[in-house]
């Protein structure tokens, strides 16, 4: 029928050695794979970005679009909408893999699960957080925000949205396969988003009040570093718990 099957010499890896390339190979694997999968369903990304635009455009309709009022609520609206957009796209992080059985293979890989999860979270940020960060200043113009606050808004979002993906990753893993996953995820994660919201929106407020946003941005930066170190471990633990 076909040539004799190549008889695989059953060599197993040295018992607990990390495979070649260590954590960066693992991070790159899940990053590239998740981006490829995301690109194959690009329309879904577009819809989630549209969600952000629509939510932001709703608020002026709900209040009188008088410029000074809009400028005052602008940062808050753009930030809360960024939180909701991140929340909306979190199920994509693990639920697909959980459903089709690939999450088991990822958890059973000799590569460290923490690095594989970090790659997935980075892919989520690139497809959800980054587009929102690039879009927010454009929408800020709708809110009569001046150039300087738009710049600070973009900077705060650039530092803040990765934290949203990192914390969100923990919540997404905890609620894998549960009933009412979406709203449960919101209840679990939004309280943890509060500090990011406060310092993120606060940065723009501080600039408008002339205080300068360095304090807020540096606190956000510190938050990002802590989240980058801690969140992958919590998310990996949550994945293992979900697979039990």
């Amino acid at each position, binding site marked *: 029928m076909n040539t004799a099957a190549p008889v695989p010499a059953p060599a197993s890896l040295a*018992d607990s050695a990390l495979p070649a390339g260590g954590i960066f190979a693992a991070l790159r694997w899940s990053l590239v794979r998740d981006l490829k999968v995301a690109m194959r369903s690009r329309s879904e990304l577009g819809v989630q970005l549209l969600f952000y635009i629509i939510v932001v455009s709703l608020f002026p309709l709900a209040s009188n679009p008088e410029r000074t009022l809009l400028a005052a609520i602008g940062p808050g609206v753009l930030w809360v909408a960024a939180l909701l957009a991140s929340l909306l796209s979190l199920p994509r992080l693990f639920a697909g893999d959980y459903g089709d059985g690939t999450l088991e*293979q990822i958890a*059973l890989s000799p*590569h460290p699960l923490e690095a594989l999860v970090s790659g997935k979270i980075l892919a989520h940020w690139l497809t959800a957080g980054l587009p929102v960060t690039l879009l927010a200043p454009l929408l800020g113009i709708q809110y009569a925000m001046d150039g300087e606050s738009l710049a600070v808004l973009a900077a705060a979002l650039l530092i803040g949205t990765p934290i949203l993906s990192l914390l969100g990753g923990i919540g997404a893993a905890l609620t894998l396969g549960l009933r009412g996953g979406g709203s449960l995820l919101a209840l679990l994660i939004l309280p943890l988003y509060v500090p990011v919201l406060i310092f993120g929106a606060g940065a723009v407020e501080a600039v408008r009040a002339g205080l300068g946003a360095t304090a807020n941005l540096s606190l956000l930066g510190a938050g990002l570093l802590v989240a980058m170190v801690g969140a992958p471990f919590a998310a990996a633990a949550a994945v*293992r718990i979900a697979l039990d």
Partner: protein
Amino acid sequence: MLEAHNLSAERGATRLFSDLSFKVGTGEALMITGANGTGKTTLLRMLAGLSAPAAGEIRWRGQIVKPFDPRLRGAVAFAGHPIALKDELTAEENLAAAAALSGEPASPDAVRSALEVVSLSRQRSLPARVLSQGQRRRIGLARLTLVRRVLWLLDEPVTALDAAGTALLARLVGEHVQTGGLAIAATHTPLILPQVRLHSLALA
């Protein structure tokens, strides 16, 4: 050498099985049979290190292994239910990803020859979404030949396979076991494995 000592498992408050002990040495295969809901899949997932037993312990090469133990992760190839394929990726991309995930990236022609073994080379660049259950099961087999692992854990490997597929499965498992591998399968229809020391375990 994989040993299980008085394993027991629970689902909710009901006990699935208890005090289960068996040994599988290199060059041996174990067929686990039993009606639905007797815990075949639960047992396989425990051996793979995905879930912890309610009681008892599992030893791999003489050492006790806990869930997600690195030693076990380096040695196990787990073919569970459903087959781990991303619908968006093509058959070739799925296999290449699986090989890289296993820590030993495979060259494109190694992937192609693996697909050839399971006679799916024509479907090489089709997204997994459009493949039939039988074809997806064959990609699972191709992954077993590509990702070299000592311990094969197969959950209902025969489902959706046609006669040729089942014969191919039996041949691959036979060759794997004869060249010093181990294989444990949970299955309803027993696999005919010539010249292989076969144990069987029925879960009541």
